[in-house]
């Protein structure tokens, strides 16, 4: 089975989806990412979808689920690199990507994650995850 690699860079997990995802591979990525967030204590996840030619309702739901699960695990997810044609299609399809933060590129995503970490800074020093400022 195909598997999408999850790379750890500092406190960030980086996923760049370079294949045409089938549904099983999408579900596997969801699981792999959750495991890796817990394993590494990463505070941020960046998912690069610039190679994706389409985002249908299944992949859209995967992105929403990853964002929600990562938040519960004390990590913020940012989706980057959506193609304009994909964005237009998503809106027309009726998919809102609820709760998914997006950025135009990886640089911008890293800025967002750095800010998010600062906001939580004090909480991180005391009891991590128990007294977060809501994001």
């Amino acid at each position: 089975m195909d598997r999408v690699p999850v790379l750890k860079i500092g406190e960030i997990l980086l996923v760049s989806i370079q294949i045409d995802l089938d549904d099983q591979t999408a579900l596997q990525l969801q699981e792999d990412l959750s495991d890796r967030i817990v394993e590494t204590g990463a505070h941020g996840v960046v998912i690069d979808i610039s190679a994706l030619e389409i985002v249908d309702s299944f992949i859209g739901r995967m992105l929403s689920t990853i964002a929600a699960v990562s938040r519960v695990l004390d990590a913020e997810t940012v989706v980057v690199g959506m193609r304009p044609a994909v964005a237009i299609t998503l809106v027309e399809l009726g998919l809102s990507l609820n709760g998914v933060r997006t950025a135009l590129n990886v640089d911008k995503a890293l800025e967002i994650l750095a800010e998010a970490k600062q906001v939580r800074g004090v909480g991180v020093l005391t009891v991590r995850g128990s007294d977060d400022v809501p994001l």
Partner: protein
Amino acid sequence: MTELEEPQRLPIADDKDVVRVRQAVRVIALAAKLPLVDQTKLVTAASELARNTLIHGGGGHALVGQVHNGRRAGVRAEFVDTGPGIADLDLAFTDGYTTGSGLGLGLSGSRRLVDEFEIVTAAGEGTRITVTKWAR
């Protein structure tokens, strides 16, 4: 209805077949010179409908190819299954309604993404959905 030219018949029996169907539709959309946004819309609709054929229809097949209508070229895809069919079409086309675990956007959403959408179904009779996107 205009004739489907040199149709390709693709089985839809698992996840990988859904990927193959959207790849085949993309190749034909490129050949028919559909603009990029329209290619993306059609491929996305094909992905939703192929998944419906797999999950709700219990598998089936797709027929994809070009069509011509006077001066215009277009791409057509048919999705055929012999599954349980759809008893209540109004309900099935309601955004957010689902009998599976999805988001309920497959049918209603894909109809918004194409130029022509035809559905033939009845309870116990299977389902045939035909979509067409025309080059501008």
